[in-house]
């Protein structure tokens, strides 16, 4: 019998604890498939953030570290410098990476640290109950912007991929979406490319996923993908911002 699909070896047997309709499971699976396909299982290590994916260290079946809020790129730096023959990634949400961890991500990228960063942007803090994130859209309502995000008071959403793209050292930067099956196939290619470059020791690779939060947006899973397409994608444009391997700079 031919096996068409199965659980990636790089995932543990635990069931994900994410909400119904959440796309973290999809992002986890893409990373795990790429690790399997690249044969990195014995030399891979990931760093989990604080936020909904705080338990990512339980779900990936290789060595994992759990980091303080926003500090994953610094922790990953320490791991990579200590064990240069390991391949390291961080997995971070928008509050973790783009608010409390801004210094760590900018400087890890600026050093061209040999790591991959998987950044899940769903424009909200999920774990703590739907507060405003640095990527929350203008006029978007959250529990800490109950009247909508007012840009004259709190500023505009941060386009993190573009911010990272202002630095010289990063090797590969791409923003992808997890909103449709076709998008997920493209996202898989970006994830695999980031980890391939990581395996080859090319430098800092960064993939941003545009994702959803049905629970805290208060929109059902399918409609939330439509909402994201209509509202997030115009502001956070998908595409490859830099790929030194392909001469895109």
């Amino acid at each position: 019998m031919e096996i068409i699909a199965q659980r990636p070896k790089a995932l543990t047997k635990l069931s994900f604890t994410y909400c119904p309709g959440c796309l973290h499971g999809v992002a986890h699976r893409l990373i795990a498939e790429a690790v399997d396909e690249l044969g990195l299982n014995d030399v891979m290590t990931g760093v989990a953030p604080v936020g909904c994916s705080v338990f990512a260290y339980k779900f990936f079946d290789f060595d994992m570290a759990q980091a303080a809020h926003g500090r994953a790129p610094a922790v990953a730096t320490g791991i990579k410098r200590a064990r240069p023959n390991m391949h390291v990634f961080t997995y971070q949400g928008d509050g973790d990476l783009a608010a409390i961890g801004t210094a760590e991500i900018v400087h890890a990228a600026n050093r061209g640290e040999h790591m991959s960063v998987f950044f899940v942007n769903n424009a909200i803090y999920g774990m703590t109950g739907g507060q405003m994130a640095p990527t929350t859209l203008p006029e978007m309502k959250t529990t800490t912007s109950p009247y909508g995000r007012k840009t004259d008071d709190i500023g505009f959403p941060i386009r993190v991929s573009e911010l990272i793209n202002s630095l010289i050292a990063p090797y590969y930067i791409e923003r992808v979406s997890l909103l449709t099956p076709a998008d997920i196939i493209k996202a898989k290619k970006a994830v695999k490319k980031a980890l391939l470059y990581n395996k080859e020791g090319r430098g800092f690779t960064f993939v941003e996923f545009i994702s959803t939060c049905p629970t805290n947006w208060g929109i059902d899973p399918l409609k939330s993908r439509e909402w994201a397409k209509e509202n997030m994608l115009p502001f956070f444009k998908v595409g490859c911002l830099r790929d030194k391997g392909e001469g895109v700079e």
Partner: protein
Amino acid sequence: MTKVLMKGNEAVAEAAIRSGCRLYFAYPITPQSELIEYMAKMMPKVGGTFLQAESEVAAINMVYGAAGAGRRVMTSSSSPGISLKMEGISYIAGAQLPAVIINVQRGGPGLGDIQPGQSDYFQAVKGGGHGDYHLIVLAPSSVQEFADMAGEAFDLADKYRTAVMILADGMLGQMMEPVEFKPAKTAEEIEALNSQHHDWCICPNVEGPEHHHHEINSLEIDPSVLEQHVYNLYDNYATIEKNELRYESYNVSDDNEILCVAWGTASRIVKSAINELKVEGKSIGMIRPITVWPFPYQEIDAAIGKNVKKVYVFELNMGQMLDDVKIAVNGKVPVDFWGKVGGIVFTPAEIKTKLEECF
């Protein structure tokens, strides 16, 4: 080995490298700058990693990562920078990681000044970061001892899977004294150190056919699991308290009329005053805690001879170790205190005057 004349900041860095430390992450701050500069110069020469982090917070989290990867790693800073590191230190304690942290203390609070102080005692031994935990805290009183403690700190950190802090000050960091170094670890010894934690640390899976899943983590969402984890930490601390207490007993005898307690830089000044009073026929002893955690409570109590009228505590702060001395003395005799703050270091003459008033 011949002795060399070195600043404390440089001597402790050299000793750390000789002890097999090949990873150092830090951020510049006075009065520990010579330490980070020495590491920047020397680490590349021994094939080690020197990385100037973007912040104190990043530096301690790099330490968390490297310690999680099971290798000897160190960071250093001075008081305000150590405050910033406290989040990471709490995580290191929770995840039971071996690491060495040096605090070259200066005057506080806030930005304070850049002169020597001992006002981070509470922070070092009573917590500092959040949660129930301890650090092993070593308090040197000379450049030689500062250097010797580097190797000792790494050995203790590896043995107990805990962070060890060397609580020095701007005087010890800046002062030059003759130092004799222990021989440097050989390449084979360093290789053995690098693989000593392979049963739990982040490392390539080269030993078994099954890939491993090691977790470096301080999160336990189940209260009963976290409760047990904290109990386990404290079992480890109890073993440390039993095995690793260090203190110096100076001139302690049944004739003592005064028993002094002082640590670090303050203790060497008190020692000078005791020596002068000894010539004048006065009998004064001193207990110098070398580990300030664990603290020599029973040893202080045992040093209070039948003629001791008073226990006198001298510190470069407003009275912090004083609380621990009071616990040790437990009302047996009066406990007096005198300290200087603001980065001002007392003189032997001032201490002598204070002690003379007791007779």
